[in-house]
């Protein structure tokens, strides 16, 4: 499987409140609330770290979860956030990450 790099969109406003991210799409003012796991992925989305590394370091290190399953879930999740326009996903490192 090819590497997946993720970066936070520039067209958002975001703030962590009570350990969870609140994210607003500045384009259509839709509001999103990420749970604890989603927040871990979001905060690690620097455009330089692969999703596999993020899942391994941030999730598998903290939670008892089968790595392949966690990665598959994470991939579906980031694709969903990409669909909402709040996360960017690429096969290459994203150099202009926010």
């Amino acid at each position, binding site marked *: 499987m090819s590497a997946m790099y993720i970066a936070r969109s520039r067209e958002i406003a975001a703030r962590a409140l009570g350990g969870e991210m609140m994210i607003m799409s500045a*384009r259509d003012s839709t509001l999103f609330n990420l749970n604890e796991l989603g927040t871990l992925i979001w905060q690690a989305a620097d455009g330089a770290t692969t999703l596999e590394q993020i899942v391994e370091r941030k999730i598998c290190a903290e939670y008892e979860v089968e790595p392949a399953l966690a990665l598959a879930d994470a991939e579906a999740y980031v694709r969903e956030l990409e669909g909402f326009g709040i996360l960017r996903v690429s096969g290459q490192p994203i150099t202009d990450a926010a």
Partner: protein
Amino acid sequence: MNLCASRRKACLLQPEISRRAGLALRQPARLWDGLVDRMLTSKSVSVYDITIEIGDIAVSVRTESSEFARLMEDRYAEFVIREPWQRAMEQPVMELDVELLLDSGIPNHESDLGDAAEDDVSVRIQANRWVMERGDFRAEWDPECRRGWVRQSLNPYAIDSVLRILHSLILARSGGFLIHAASAVRNGRAFIFAGESGAGKTTLSRLAPRDATILTDEISYVKPVAGNRAGANGGPFEAFGTPFAGELARIGQKTRACLAGMFILRQGPENRLESLTEREAAWELFRHVLFFARDEDLVRRVFESILEFVRCVPVQRMAFQPNAAAWELIA
């Protein structure tokens, strides 16, 4: 691991709130004084200049129609500034020219379109000007010159919507916002009551004790205290009265007070308060804030203002029975 369940959505871009007041149209026109002072002459046509001040922001509505001018005076009552000394702030007045289209075929939004069409407001930036459109009006606003115009038929609903949109845009730039909520002042402190339609905003306003002043039963006006803007040390917020009336069909009192709390209402079997975390409070607030523009910069500002608000102002969920005892929870 269930990542997918962690996402929730709400839309800040809310539809306009339905108007049912129709105050001025159904009342006999009252005699007004000082008319001559406000008449300006331009190209030998009389121009009536009605200055409406809401939340320290004065908008001068100019029209050639005496009938429309009278409609404005009646509808906005004490929010109309009749003498310069009545102004709360020494800020320049904004100017809005109203052009009435008679027999133009423009539908009267209130009577012809009904609630279903309330979400058809479009607000966008075009060549540095705000363009606002709905079935019954088209308006443009230049924020730099602080001038604009409205083209509408002779009814009070279009101008009322334009004023709401205009104030929501101006507020967004200064750290404030409009909320679909009732608000009141008691013992010098302001409280906001938000909730779904039917949750009890109007009921609670009706049950208000004599020592409470109703700022509005429909659209609350929130702004950071001047000189203590969000971003500094996060100053407290103020609530202002608005003439935007709801089911009570009665405009609010033109006064202001520092905000001491916000309540998310629902009618319940007992009177009870429950504190919300900042995150829960922000989520609730986002649902009730009125904001019309699809503009990235302003959306970001409103987002930050809402988070600043929930950091400074306690927000509680309030279950209440529809009787006067509910007000005992509000202190």
